[in-house]
């Protein structure tokens, strides 16, 4: 069958199981947009800014586990993707971006809308390609999907010059093997590694599991839980590990790290064995590396060999897929009790519970933590939550326990403001779900709120909760703690979000009293034919506790003072 390069791209997408593409047209990609008219089974979502397309594809990928697809034109179209690609790279999210490029004859001439896109994206993609010859196109797209979704997943970009999209050739889908002599994602552990891990596990008296995004990505939740129950080992989660194991489980310590729970951080600092399962010891997780878990030996299981010894020296490093490695390990693991250790951990937990704002009366103030707690109640903990970046993100992490994998979608590694709304749109479209909540700050929402129009045009039933504190709250918190309350460039004007929603034809409500929170959530949950927005006007000067200042020892948390007996 003779096809054009543009048609070949779309044929290949169909064979990869793609059903939706997020994109924006322009000169250099027009042949592909024109060819789309022949492939109605591929749904194209027109975004309002290419960054939105990349975040949507990312949200789609994180929600479904499938590869998200982005289409954009050359030059400014492609450069607008960069933030979204870097976000996906940091959190190992599989997306494939197809960008138009100027014709091969014009490459290198500073042609109209020419940018060296493979050059620009080289450090923020897992891999990228510039296709010079239509004969290579089908195989390249196949390889791009393979690289994106295997091993440690990540974003891949394929840059296709306009003449390559127009050129015709015989289309044969390359069924043959992927030809990458140096690319062999590891799977299994060696017997020696398993034995070495078992020895440390048997000797441990105070073990803690550190469950990261690798648990979610390898689908190893059941194995982690089985290991934890068998050995009575408490589980601390990274932000991106949330949902990997049910947080309601008695062994769960919830989130570790900078804004993690006191009990998770104290358990880590007092442990004699850390079992790092698919997590990369990010600096938000470890605090000061010199004083991090000083008495603990470490077993580090990760699919990416370069993560081993990168930040924390492992006593037993195992490179492999977490699920496979745990399945090798589990039959050999002995039952353990760790009664004294668990009692100690429970004491820390009770102390944290006492300080918890959830149990404190806020008077007439509406606290974001209470909003999120009530939201969790109203949605019965069942929503798929997508957050933006800032204080509201941390309150989500603290007050919305997740029970199932892929139900919290958040930008962890890059911390990209503006991620929330578009990623939620992508997630809702991928899951065809009416149960996706975007929790965003007033600042981050304004970075990508143009995508409201996309949600309306596509009738995406996404629920948007704006936590409006009138500030770039997380930065304000740092200014309060570390810059003597000089609030420079953090108070911000916001438009009337309800009127804004009305301009888009989106139903919206503003809530400023605690008793209105649950009814508003229920109301939003009843609207399922398009987006709906609820603005929560919350306390402006609130603080996320606990906090480990950047670079401080993990046990030196700034904690919320315990309530004094005579306070109301």
């Amino acid at each position: 069958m003779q096809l054009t390069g543009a048609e070949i791209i779309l044929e290949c997408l169909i064979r990869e199981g793609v059903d939706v593409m997020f994109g924006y047209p322009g000169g250099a990609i027009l042949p592909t947009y024109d060819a789309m008219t022949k492939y109605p089974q591929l749904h194209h979502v027109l975004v309002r800014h290419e960054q939105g397309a990349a975040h949507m594809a990312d949200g789609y990928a994180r929600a479904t586990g499938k590869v998200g697809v982005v289409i954009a034109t050359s030059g400014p179209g492609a450069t607008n993707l960069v933030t979204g690609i870097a976000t996906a790279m940091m959190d190992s999210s599989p997306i494939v971006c197809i960008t138009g490029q100027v014709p091969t004859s014009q490459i290198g001439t500073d042609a109209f809308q020419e940018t060296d896109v493979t050059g620009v994206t080289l450090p923020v993609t897992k891999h990228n390609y510039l296709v010079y010859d239509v004969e290579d196109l089908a195989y390249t797209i196949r390889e791009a999907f393979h690289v994106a979704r295997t091993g440690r997943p990540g974003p891949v970009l394929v840059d296709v010059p306009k003449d390559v999209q127009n050129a015709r050739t015989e289309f044969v889908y390359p069924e043959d093997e992927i030809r990458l002599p140096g690319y062999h994602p590891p799977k299994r552990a060696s017997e020696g590694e398993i034995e070495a891990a078992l020895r440390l596990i048997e000797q441990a008296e105070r073990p803690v599991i550190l469950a990261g995004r690798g648990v979610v990505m390898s689908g190893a939740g059941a194995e982690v839980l089985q290991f934890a129950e068998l050995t009575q080992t408490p589980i601390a989660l990274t932000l991106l590990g949330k949902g990997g194991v049910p947080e309601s489980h008695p062994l769960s310590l919830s989130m570790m790290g900078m804004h993690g729970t006191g009990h998770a951080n104290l358990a880590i600092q007092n442990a004699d064995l850390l079992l790092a399962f698919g997590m990369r010891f990010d600096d938000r997780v470890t605090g000061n590396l010199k004083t991090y878990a000083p008495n603990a030996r470490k077993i580090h299981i990760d699919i990416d060999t370069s993560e081993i010894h990168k930040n924390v020296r492992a006593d037993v490093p195992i490179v492999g897929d977490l699920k496979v490695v745990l399945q090798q390990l589990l039959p050999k693991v002995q039952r353990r009790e760790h009664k004294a250790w668990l009692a100690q951990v429970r004491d820390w937990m009770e102390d944290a519970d006492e300080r918890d704002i959830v149990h404190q009366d806020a008077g007439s103030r509406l606290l974001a933590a209470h909003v999120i707690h009530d939201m969790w109640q109203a949605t019965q903990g069942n929503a798929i939550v997508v957050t933006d970046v800032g204080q509201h993100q941390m309150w989500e992490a603290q007050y919305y326990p997740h029970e199932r994998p892929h139900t919290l979608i958040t930008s962890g590694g890059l911390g990209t403001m503006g991620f929330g709304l578009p990623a939620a749109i992508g997630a809702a479209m991928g899951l065809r779900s009416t149960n996706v909540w975007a929790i965003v700050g007033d600042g981050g929402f304004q970075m990508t709120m143009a995508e409201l129009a996309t949600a309306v045009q596509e009738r995406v039933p996404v629920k948007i909760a704006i936590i409006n504190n009138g500030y770039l709250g997380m930065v304000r918190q740092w200014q309060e703690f570390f810059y003597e309350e000089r609030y420079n460039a953090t108070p911000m004007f916001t438009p009337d979000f309800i009127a804004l929603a009305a301009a888009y034809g989106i139903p919206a409500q503003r809530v400023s009293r605690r008793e209105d929170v649950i009814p508003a959530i229920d109301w939003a949950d009843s609207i399922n034919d398009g987006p709906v927005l609820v603005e929560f006007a919350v306390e402006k000067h609130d603080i996320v506790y606990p906090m480990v200042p950047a670079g401080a020892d993990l046990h030196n948390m700034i904690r919320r003072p315990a309530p004094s007996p005579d306070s109301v």
Partner: protein
Amino acid sequence: MKQTLVALVENKPGVLNRVASLFRRRNFNIDSLTVGRTESPAISRMTIVVDTDAEKVAKQLYKLVNVIQVEDVTNVPNVSRDLALIKVQVSAETRGQVIQICDIFRAHIVDTSPETLIVEVTGDEEKITGIVEMLRQFGILEMVRTGVVTMVRGEQALSPNGYHEHFASRGNGHSANVL
């Protein structure tokens, strides 16, 4: 301490760029990097001398999809060669002295003019530094070095033709003794 790595990479456009970008991104100091063909047209070979933990460098290189194999040869008996071309100022009196020094270092004179000589010398780091030091007194007008290329001594061969078996037996190049 300086460490020497040998890497086999796919001969595809942009691979050198990927490696160079990786070194800058990860804050690795390159002392020298050479790249050239091998007996297989599909594969290029790099010799990389770094001032960083070689294990870290190798692990990061493996993240590049086009990198096939990386060996740390720092502590393996090997032959390392660097080639230098050195343009030296000479006069009627000093010409003989320079030629004598070249003899001692087994260097060749590859170009002459009434006032200059180009000396070609091949050897390891020490030998080149040695001759440069000796020639400095006459006045070095220009110098260029290719950077080090390295090959392990003996029967062990890092051959692109063998990479499939090599990888299968080494478990993805992740086992500790490779790095």
